C-alpha cells in the first residue's frame, strides 16, 4: 500500500497536450504554414532572413524578461535601456570619435548599471519590481533624451551597418547568431546550473527558498543585473540594425517581451517559464507582424491580432492548468 512508484512515464499524447511549450510550438508552425500559403513572398529566403534579424532584439530581451518573470518580478525598463545603449554607443563613436570597442563596452556598462539599480531596489530595499523598473524606465529615457536634446545620432562608422547586415556564410545573419548564442547560454544557465534553480526557487516561494539556504537577495539582485546586461546587448544589436542612436528606439519593447514570455507559458506569479517557450512566443509575435504586413494589414490591425493571440494563448494555458489540478 505504501510502495512508491518511481518513474512512471505518461503517454506521449498526454505529455504533448499537457505542455504549454508544445501547444505554442504548434501555434507557431500553424502560423508559418498559414502565411506561407496566404502571404506571397512570406516563405522566401529573403523574408525568413529578415524575420530572424527582426526577432534578434526582441529575442534577447525576451530571454532577460524570462529570468525576471520567473522570479515573480517584471522589468519595464528594457525598452529605455535599449534606447540609452544605442545613444551612448553611437555618441561615443560619432561625437567623441572613440573606437567601436570602447563605445560598446561603455554602453554595456551603462546598461549593467541600470540593472544594478533595479536589482538593488527590488532585492535589497524590497520595492515592487513594477514600480522600480517603471521609475528607472522614465529616468533613463529622460537622461537619454536630455543628453542630446532629443536628437538622434547618425553617420555611424560603416563597420556598424556592415555588421548589422552581415551574415555568416551568406545564410545566417550576424544579429540572429548573437541572439541564438545568448539563447543557448541562458537556457543552459536556467536549466542546468544551480543559479537557474535559485531563480525558480525565489519565484515559486521566496520564503521557502530562503529557508532552504538560497541567498535570495543575491540571486534576485543578480537576475536584474543580468537582465540589464542582456538589454544592453539588445541595444547594441538594435544600433547595428538601424545604424543610428535614437533615445526612444526601444520604446514599448518590454511589452512585447512580457507578451512573449507569457505566451510561452511563463506565469507573472513567478516560478514558471522557460527560455524555449518564451522564444517561441517571441517568434509568434514576429511571424504575426511580418505575415500580416505582407498580407497588407496595417500596424493597427497587427496590434489587434497580437492582443487576441496573447489572450487566447494564456486562456489555453489557464484551462490546461485548471484541468490538470482538477485531475489530482
Amino acid at each position, binding site marked *: *500500500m*505504501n*510502495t*512508491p*512508484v*518511481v*518513474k*512512471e*512515464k505518461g503517454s506521449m499524447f498526454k505529455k504533448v497536450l499537457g505542455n504549454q511549450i508544445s501547444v505554442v510550438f504548434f501555434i507557431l508552425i500553424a502560423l508559418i504554414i498559414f502565411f506561407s500559403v496566404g502571404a506571397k513572398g512570406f516563405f522566401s529566403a529573403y523574408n525568413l532572413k529578415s524575420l530572424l534579424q527582426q526577432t534578434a532584439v526582441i529575442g534577447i530581451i525576451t530571454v532577460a524578461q524570462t529570468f525576471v518573470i520567473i522570479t515573480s518580478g517584471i522589468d519595464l525598463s528594457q525598452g529605455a535601456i535599449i534606447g540609452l545603449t544605442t545613444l551612448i554607443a553611437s555618441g561615443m563613436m560619432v561625437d567623441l570619435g572613440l573606437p567601436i570597442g570602447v563605445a560598446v563596452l561603455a554602453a554595456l556598462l551603462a546598461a549593467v548599471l541600470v540593472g544594478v539599480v533595479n536589482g538593488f531596489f527590488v532585492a535589497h530595499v524590497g520595492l515592487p519590481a513594477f514600480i522600480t523598473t517603471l521609475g528607472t524606465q522614465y529616468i533613463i529615457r529622460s537622461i537619454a533624451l536630455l543628453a542630446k536634446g532629443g536628437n538622434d545620432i547618425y553617420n555611424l562608422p560603416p563597420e556598424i551597418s556592415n555588421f548589422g547586415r552581415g551574415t555568416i556564410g551568406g545564410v545566417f545573419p550576424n544579429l540572429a547568431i548573437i541572439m541564438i548564442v545568448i539563447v543557448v547560454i541562458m537556457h543552459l544557465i536556467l536549466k*542546468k*546550473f*544551480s*543559479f537557474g*534553480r*535559485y531563480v*525558480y*526557487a525565489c519565484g*515559486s*516561494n521566496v*520564503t*521557502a*527558498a*530562503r*529557508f*532552504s*539556504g*538560497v*541567498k535570495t537577495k543575491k540571486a534576485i539582485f543578480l537576475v536584474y543585473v543580468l537582465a540589464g546586461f542582456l538589454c544592453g546587448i539588445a541595444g547594441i544589436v538594435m544600433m547595428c540594425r538601424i545604424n543610428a542612436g535614437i533615445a526612444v528606439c526601444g520604446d514599448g519593447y518590454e511589452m512585447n517581451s512580457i507578451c512573449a514570455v507569457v505566451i510561452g507559458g511563463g506565469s507573472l506569479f513567478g*516560478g*514558471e517559464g522557460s527560455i524555449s517557450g518564451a522564444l517561441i512566443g517571441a517568434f509568434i509575435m514576429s511571424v504575426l507582424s511580418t505575415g500580416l504586413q505582407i498580407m497588407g494589414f496595417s500596424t493597427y490591425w497587427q496590434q489587434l491580432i497580437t492582443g487576441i493571440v496573447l489572450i487566447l494563448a494564456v486562456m489555453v494555458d489557464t484551462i490546461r492548468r485548471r484541468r490538470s*489540478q482538477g*485531475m*489530482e
Partner: protein
Amino acid sequence: MLEFINISKSFFKNKVLDGISFKAESGEILALAGQNGAGKSTLMKILTGIYQADGGQILIDGKEVHFTSVSDADAAGVGIVYQELSVIPHLTVAENVVLSQNVNRRFHYLNKKKEIAQTEEVFRRLGVEIDVTRPLGEYTASTQQLVEIAKSIYKNPKLVIFDEPTTSLTNKEREKLFEVMDAMRKEGMTILFITHYLEEMYRMADKCVVLRDGRVQYYGAMNQLDKGELVNLMIGQRLDAFYPKIESYVTEKTAVELSGFGGGIVAPCDLKINYGEVVGLAGLVGAGRTELVWMMIGHTKHSYGSIKIDGRDVTIKDPGDALDLGIAYINEDRKNGGLHTGMGIGFNILLPSIVKNRADIVSSTGYINDKEARRVSDEMIVSLEVKCVDADQKVMTLSGGNQQKVSIAKWIAADPQIYIFDEPTKGIDVLTKSRVYDIIRGLAKDGKAVLVISSYTPELIGVCDRVEVMSKGKIVASFGQGVTENDILLVQ
C-alpha cells in the same frame, strides 16, 4: 438527522469511497477517523456539494438531497469550518461573519446595526466575548478560528463539519473551542469532527466512524473502542511500538551550544546538544521556541549571546550560512516556508543539496548532473516512502504526510549534522507520524544531533533523550528519561 447510504465515488477508476453508510443524530458529535487518503475529505466534499457521489444517497432529516454546489449545501443547513482560515483581516469581526450572506442586503445596502447585533447574538450563543466592531486582524489566530465558526453558525446550520480545527491552537484555546462545540451540541446541532489527535476524539465525540481505503471499518460509540484498537483500524495493521524504543546513542561530543543566546521575546538561553542526542523543546504556542530556533539558523537576528558549532564560535547571518555549517531546519509551515509546493518533488528534495554544492550532483562551476540528481531524488523518495507518481509530481498534489516526508528528505539529502524539527507531526496521519519518529531516532543512531520542537508532549517523551521546557521566552526546566506529561505540564 444525517444519513449516508452506500455512497461511492471514483476518480479515474480509482475507487476512493466504496459503499459508505452511517448516520449522525441531532445533538451529537461524531468523530470521523482515518488516515490521509482514507476518504474523509472526499466524503466531506460530497456532503458540502463540491463533489458529486457516483452512487448512493444522502438523507437529511429523512429526505434525500442532491447538492451540486456549496450554496446548495449551505441552504440545506450544512456548514463547514475549515482548518485553514479564510477570513479577511482588515474587515471587522462582524463584517467577516456576515460576508457571505445576502440576507441583510437589500439593494446591496449593508445594514450595519443589524449586522453587529446579529453577530453579537451568534457569539453569545457560542459563549464568547468579543468586540465585533474591531478589525479581525487585531485578534489572534485562535480568535480568527472562532470567527470561522461564527461564520458558519450565523447561517443557522443543522450540521457543522469541523475539519482539523485545533491544529494551530494552544491548549487554552483548544479548551475554549471544545466549550463552543459543547454549546453547539446542547443546541441540538450535529457535529462531524475530523482530527488527527486521538485524545480529542475521546474527549469530545459521542460516536465514531473509522474509514480506511474508502470503507467504513467501525461505526459505533466512541467509548466502546479502545485507543489501540482505533489505531489498528485506521492503519489496518498492528502498530506494536508506536514510539520507537529509546536506546541511547548519545555521544560525548557537543554539536551545538548556545550561551546566553536570544533576542526579542527570547530571554538569554543556554542549550547544549550532543551528537547522537535527540533533545525536545516543549512549551506552549508563543513560548518562544520557534523564535529561538529561527535565530539559531539566522532567519531572524539574535541580539545577545553566542552559538558554538563543534566548539567553535560561528556567525550565522541567514539560513544559507546555517546550511553551510550543517544545520537543517525542518519548517513547521510546509506550505509557506518549508516547501516549494508549486514545484516538483525532485526540485524540492534537491534544493538544499544544490545550494550546498553536494559534490556528486553539482560541479564546482555550478553545473548540475541531471542523472545523478535524479538518482538522488529517486533514492530519497524510495527510502522515505513518499507515495507519488514520480519525482516530477508537484508537491501540492501530495497529502500532508507525504509533503512532510519530502520536507525531511530534502534535508537528509544535503547531509547536515544538526537537525531542528519544528512540530514535525503537525497535520499528518498516524502511520506517517510513527515513520517520522523512526526517522528522528534513526538520525540519532547515525550520530546526528537533533532538536525537536513539539506542542504534543507525549511524542517528545516518546522520542527524546532529554526534554527542555520553554515558557515565556525562557528555558525553565530540563528533564531526562522517565519524564511524564505531568512534569512538563506543571512547568510550562
